[in-house]
């Protein structure tokens, strides 16, 4: 009887330990998934930043900005915004132009998105003076 009770106690003890272990595993797996997602997000953000900086500079230096976007694989939507899906992130570019007294201010907004959430937005602007006849 005493031996039987001792075994039951041991079984109960092990069951409690296993339950505690299962609880800890759930928490730890959750942390692993969180760390993995955070790392993927940071990686995507770093890649998107390099891509967005390069794109902003290409738009700054280009005469035909829409041609640059087309060459880079961007597609224009009905609102005039340009989209590119780059695997872990998406790039969205909106081009703008404002006439000034002696030229044109060309603006571009490069936005990086991941799972429809904005990672960052990078503005770019270039003043193009009007050509003056000599």
């Amino acid at each position, binding site marked *: 009887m005493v031996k039987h009770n001792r*075994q039951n106690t041991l079984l109960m003890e*092990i069951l409690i330990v296993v339950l505690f272990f299962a609880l800890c595993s759930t928490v*730890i797996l959750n942390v*692993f998934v969180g760390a993995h997602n955070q790392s993927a997000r940071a990686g995507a953000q770093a890649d998107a930043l*390099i891509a967005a900086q390069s794109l902003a500079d290409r738009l700054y230096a280009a005469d035909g900005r829409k041609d640059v976007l087309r060459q880079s694989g961007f597609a224009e939507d009905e609102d005039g915004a340009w989209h590119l899906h780059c695997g872990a992130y998406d790039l969205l570019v909106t081009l703008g132009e404002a006439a000034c007294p002696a030229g044109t201010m060309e603006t571009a907004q490069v936005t990086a998105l991941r799972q429809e959430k904005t990672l960052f937005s990078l503005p770019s602007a270039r003043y193009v003076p009007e050509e003056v006849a000599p």
Partner: protein
Amino acid sequence: MKTKSHSISGAFVFTLLGVFAVFSILLVVLGAQAYRTTVDSASAHTRKRIAAAFVRNAVRAQDERGAIAVEDRDGLPVLALSSEWDGERYVQYIYGYQGQLCELFTAAEYDFAPEDGEPVCAAQAFEPTLEGDLLTVRVTDETGHVSTVYIARRCAQ
């Protein structure tokens, strides 16, 4: 009968212990794998970023009229960024040499010697090209991954 019941109960306890041990090991292996993946991914992104950030910052810091040039020194493509300090002309050369991205800051009067440069990070190849106001730099890292960085000159030439 009683003895048989006891032996099944004992076996169950040991099986439970075995399952516990197996799952413990599995969790440790899984954790190590997750940690390794995270660290590898972070270091790959850092590697990719270093060369791009270094070149971009160097160009931005020296973006003056006529200061940015791409030169060919004995078949070695070199990004030359010149600046003036106390009336003397200095040149910062950025180039790929012996599997490293190197930087050499020297007075313009001295000859360019690639072996004198300081290594910045590992890079199999460094190919700068300048077209109009757009500087294009292709960097191949030690894993063979090619990153292309575009930098627009803000200062008119």
